[in-house]
């Protein structure tokens, strides 16, 4: 049933103690995912988006990471689950597809057998039945001649077909949550659109919730209903896609939008965000983005702005007042579209 709350992450923090100090990969992260919703998580490399989702799947090494908060799946806290319970969730209720489909399939097993293995990981059925199921899902993700192709090895598949096979593998148990970690980054642009379309179709057909992790705002704009922008392990802006794209609140989101080319050709200035993401071991005091922020003022390097809610479920973490934000973004928009300067 669409709208049903699937995943409720509350105040999630992930730390990795290392020889150089504690890495704060994710801090104070909260979000929800409902059936039929696509949540886009956007951020640069190292912003904590992948770690968040590995934490949901329980794939982080428990000896080398410290995870606090709550990850409620259907109301049950995954962080309190035993390894066996977690294994039962993985691939069955929460499935994941990854960035590089070339490296994600085992090179020495047939594609169909790898999918059949996923079937048998959670279901006590014969190998033949599992293979039939594999053919069924391969067919569902648009692999032509699925029965014959299921006997191919991964190297006989193209990149797009491999990602389709990964999606097929994720679907064998009708999961309620699909996590797609940069699913199109390694693919050709034309194939990217097909895969995004497929993920969207799968979401509708199977009525599931999708978490789409990406560093490409364009990908999110096409498919997501909700957007969360992450920076240095924290959400800096979070809200409905329409709100975030039409009325972006955080200077970091502005930077991301400005660095994105547009097909319409209106954009005259492509601007990079100056500087580098901060070290996750030695986070700057105050707002983590302040060293790179052109609009920083008095409190920015002392007090970390909380994620404050505005109307319409849209929230952001910035000290600027709403009027100042509106004015500054309008000015930057003008420059971006070549109107002002």
């Amino acid at each position, binding site marked *: 049933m669409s709208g049903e709350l699937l995943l409720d992450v509350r105040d999630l923090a992930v730390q990795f103690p290392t020889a150089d100090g504690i890495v704060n990969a994710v801090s104070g992260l909260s979000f929800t995912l409902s059936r039929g919703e696509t949540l886009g998580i956007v951020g640069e490399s190292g912003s904590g988006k992948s770690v968040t989702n590995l934490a949901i*799947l329980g*794939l982080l090494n428990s000896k080398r990471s410290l995870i606090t908060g709550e990850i409620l799946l259907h109301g049950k806290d995954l962080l309190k689950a035993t390894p066996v319970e977690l*294994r*039962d*969730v*993985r*691939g*069955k209720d929460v*499935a*994941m597809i*990854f960035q*590089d489909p070339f*490296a*994600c*399939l*085992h*090179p*020495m*097993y*047939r594609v169909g057998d790898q999918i059949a*293995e*996923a079937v048998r*990981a*959670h279901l006590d059925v014969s190998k033949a039945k599992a293979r039939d199921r594999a053919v069924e899902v391969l067919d569902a993700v648009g692999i032509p001649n699925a029965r014959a192709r299921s006997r191919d*090895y991964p*190297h006989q598949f193209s990149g797009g077909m491999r990602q389709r096979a*990964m999606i097929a*593998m994720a679907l064998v148990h009708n999961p309620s949550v699909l996590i797609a970690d940069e699913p199109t980054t390694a693919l050709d642009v034309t194939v990217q659109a097909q895969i995004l379309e497929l993920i969207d179709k799968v979401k509708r057909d199977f009525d599931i919730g999708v978490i789409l992790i990406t560093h490409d705002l364009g990908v999110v704009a096409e498919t997501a209903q909700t957007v969360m922008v992450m920076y240095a392990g924290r959400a800096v802006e979070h809200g409905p896609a329409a709100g975030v794209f039409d009325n972006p609140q955080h200077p970091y989101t502005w930077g991301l939008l400005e660095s994105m080319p547009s097909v319409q050709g209106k954009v005259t200035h492509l601007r990079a965000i100056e500087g580098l993401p901060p070290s996750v071991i030695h986070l700057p005091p105050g707002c983590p983005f302040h060293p790179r922020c052109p609009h920083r003022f008095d409190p920015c390097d002392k007090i970390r702005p909380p994620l404050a809610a505005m109307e319409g479920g849209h929230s952001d973490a910035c000290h600027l007042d709403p009027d100042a934000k509106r004015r500054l973004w309008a000015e930057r928009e003008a420059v971006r579209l070549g109107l002002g300067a």
Partner: protein
Amino acid sequence: MVIYLARRLTWAVAVLLAVTALTFAIFYLLPPGDPALRFVGKQPTPENLALVRHNLGLDHPWYVQYGKFVKSIVVGDKYGWPGLGYSYDSSVPIRDKIVEKAPRTFSLIVGASIIWLSMGVLIGVISAIKRRTIFDRIAMGFALFGISAPVFWLGLMALFIFWYKLDLTAGTGYTSFTTSPQEWASHLILPWIVLALLYAAIYARMVRGNLLDTMGEDFIRTARAKGLSERNVIFRHGLRASLAPIVTMFGLDIALLVGGAVITESVFNLDGLGFMAIDSVFRQDLPGVLGVVLVGTFAVVIMNLLVDIAYAFLDPRVRYA
């Protein structure tokens, strides 16, 4: 596949010819002395020397001798097929000598290779899984010991302790399997372990390294994300992908030991092919050397072929045409 095999076998013949020709050339271009002089007796007359030379065929130029050698291999000689001539030294047919000594060497290799492969893979896998634990450190310490300890020392120590002091095994020498399987094993158990120790150490380190590399691969994460048990992830997905290089090494190591287990064969007085090669070199017994070189080269060529074929089965990305 058939074309591939035919091409490989043609190459094998070429390699065998080249290696024997090279061995031949070394004996003629770097002459350490006249073989005929050794066999003619204490005070040779020129007539006797000439006669011995003629009997051994040494009065022909080397390429004629080589031609005869190749011909007798192909069509056989009076001692049977393949004809390998007879020893200058003892007048025993080389073919008979090799038939007698090969089972000794093969017994040594088969036992040792089973021990080192199972030990190496087992220790390597556990070390990789229990990485940085006390087991890993002890296992890698053992590996360092196995790699560093010289075989002749290890062999003598083993004989001293288990044969001389404890009297648990039979000592040096060899009893054929058909005579008495118990005696056969009792004679071979120490050489098996001593020879296997070195290789087990190398294999353990290699399996550990390969498996650790493989466990960092993306397809391992996929296997975990599917919800497979950790045992399945390691053995079905991790080990499978890391075994291919082990197979290559295993094939070549076995082949090289056919003529190369000299030290082990000497220490335990097994009198196998490696020992025969060295002994023939010292006695300037060219046919003996050539016989072992031929068998050794043949082993390398065949094992190479087997490794390639095994590879095609292990890794579907490899296809021969």
